[in-house]
């Protein structure tokens, strides 16, 4: 579904990603793991068209997306829920969700909104509240809900568990699994290695701009190098 080939990218003169090859298939959860500053968000931002890659290609459902504008990428159904939520603080929860279908999924806006607030009952209670007044966990739900409003084919979740309480993190991973069970392909970008590997089908580990390991989630979970590097075991 999503195919990244030989991607080199960075900011200005500085190259951060030095040749990335990865794929996400239909119906899969792929976990992209790595610690802070290895280039996970750079990869995301290039896939979503916020930056232009230096070299390499990005294909989505066989179509070339390299260098396409963000709105063209959203229109195809490749939706990113960004790190730090990026909800519109001055707009109500309802308006945030409505704008989720600004350029895709507009005909089914009312039905999708109903589905999202059924998935996240907390958002239903706060529909008229300004998004900036929500708690971190609620903002994360809103960001995901806003992404779902665009009827995604592939959802990229960038650090969805960041800043959430352990209980909410559990909930978040259960939700990701549920969305995937309904057929949504997910690229999960996370630092939380254990829980990500528990729900992912496949995973890759990004280290200093290259993929250090990749394979099935179960295989990686059993890998002693990975366990030593990320879990201290």
């Amino acid at each position, binding site marked *: 579904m999503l195919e990244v080939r030989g991607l080199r990218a960075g900011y200005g003169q500085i190259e951060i990603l030095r040749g990335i090859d990865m794929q996400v298939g239909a119906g899969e959860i792929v976990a992209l793991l790595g610690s802070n500053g290895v280039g996970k968000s750079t990869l995301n931002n290039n896939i979503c068209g916020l930056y232009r890659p230096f070299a390499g290609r990005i294909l989505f459902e066989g179509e070339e997306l390299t260098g396409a504008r963000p*709105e063209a990428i*959203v229109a195809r159904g490749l939706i*990113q829920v960004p790190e730090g939520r990026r909800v519109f603080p*001055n707009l109500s929860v309802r*308006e945030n969700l409505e*704008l989720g279908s*600004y350029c895709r999924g507009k005909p089914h806006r009312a039905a999708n909104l109903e589905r999202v607030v059924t998935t996240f009952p907390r958002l239903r209670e706060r529909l008229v509240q300004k998004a900036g007044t929500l708690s971190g966990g609620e903002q994360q739900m809103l960001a995901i809900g806003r992404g779902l409003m*665009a009827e995604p084919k592939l959802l990229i979740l960038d650090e969805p568990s960041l800043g959430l309480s352990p209980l909410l993190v559990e909930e978040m991973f259960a939700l990701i699994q549920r969305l995937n069970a309904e057929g949504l392909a997910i690229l999960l970008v996370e630092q939380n290695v254990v829980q990500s590997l528990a729900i992912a089908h496949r995973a890759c580990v990004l280290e200093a701009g290259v993929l250090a390991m990749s394979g099935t989630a179960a295989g990686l979970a059993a890998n002693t190098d990975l366990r030593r590097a990320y879990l201290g075991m």
Partner: protein
Amino acid sequence: MSPDIIFAGVVNGLMAGGIYVLVATGLTLIYGVLHIINFAHGSLLMLAMYAVFFLFRPPLGLDPYLALPLVTAGAFLMGYVLYRGVIGRLSHGRDENILLITLGLSIVADNVALFLFTGDTQTIGVAYAGNYISLGPALVPLPKLISFGASMLICALLGLFMSQTDMGKAIRAVAKERQGARLVGIDVENIFAVSYGIGIACLGAAACLLMPFFYVSPSSGHVFVLIAFTTVVLGGMGSFGGALAGGLIIGVVESLAGLQFGEQLGQLGIPLVFILILLLRPTGLFGRQ
């Protein structure tokens, strides 16, 4: 002063405030979305006023109120194209560049106007300019009453547009969270141009409402823009409610201070109230930290 005179002063101040609100709304919208002060605001108002002036003159003889839809739409288009063609292109994504470009545009526009139209003040003589309407003890010139009513109506329509349409919501979203806006598929550059266009459209409408009772010269935009800057800061940068309250307050202060201290000395009233309000509320009436 007797209560009747104060009442008349307040009414006349509100009437003048309507135009201030309209000009300030355009300025505050552009500030809210683009995070820049549009230094070209006064010059573009002046150009719109000349447009109204020439539309009124033969051969067209178009009444300024009838010209309003045309001039407003033309001003929107002008703002949109100006942003797309000049401001956005030259800014290279840096807000401080936009500031300088709008300042440059203003200098160019003022001098081109001076060259083409000379520095003489021009007025249009509409038949209804001398009509007065009495509101209780206050006597209000008909064009001022119309300018107030129309300004409030336009602000209400703009408020509806911003709160009810997808485009309006997108404009508000871009104002606070550009990255998030890009990720839901909002074309941020287009929103910048539309916002700039709407800001200038407010000036087009203001020009039509002003011309029946005001004059135009290459420097006449500055009269209103200084007041609009004051209004925007007084009300809170980027706040629509602030522009509305600020514009009306300034109109009333100007009018009452003029009554008490005379036209010349009365001008001090605006900066005094401005300083006083900012001392008490440094972010303006409706501003946030």
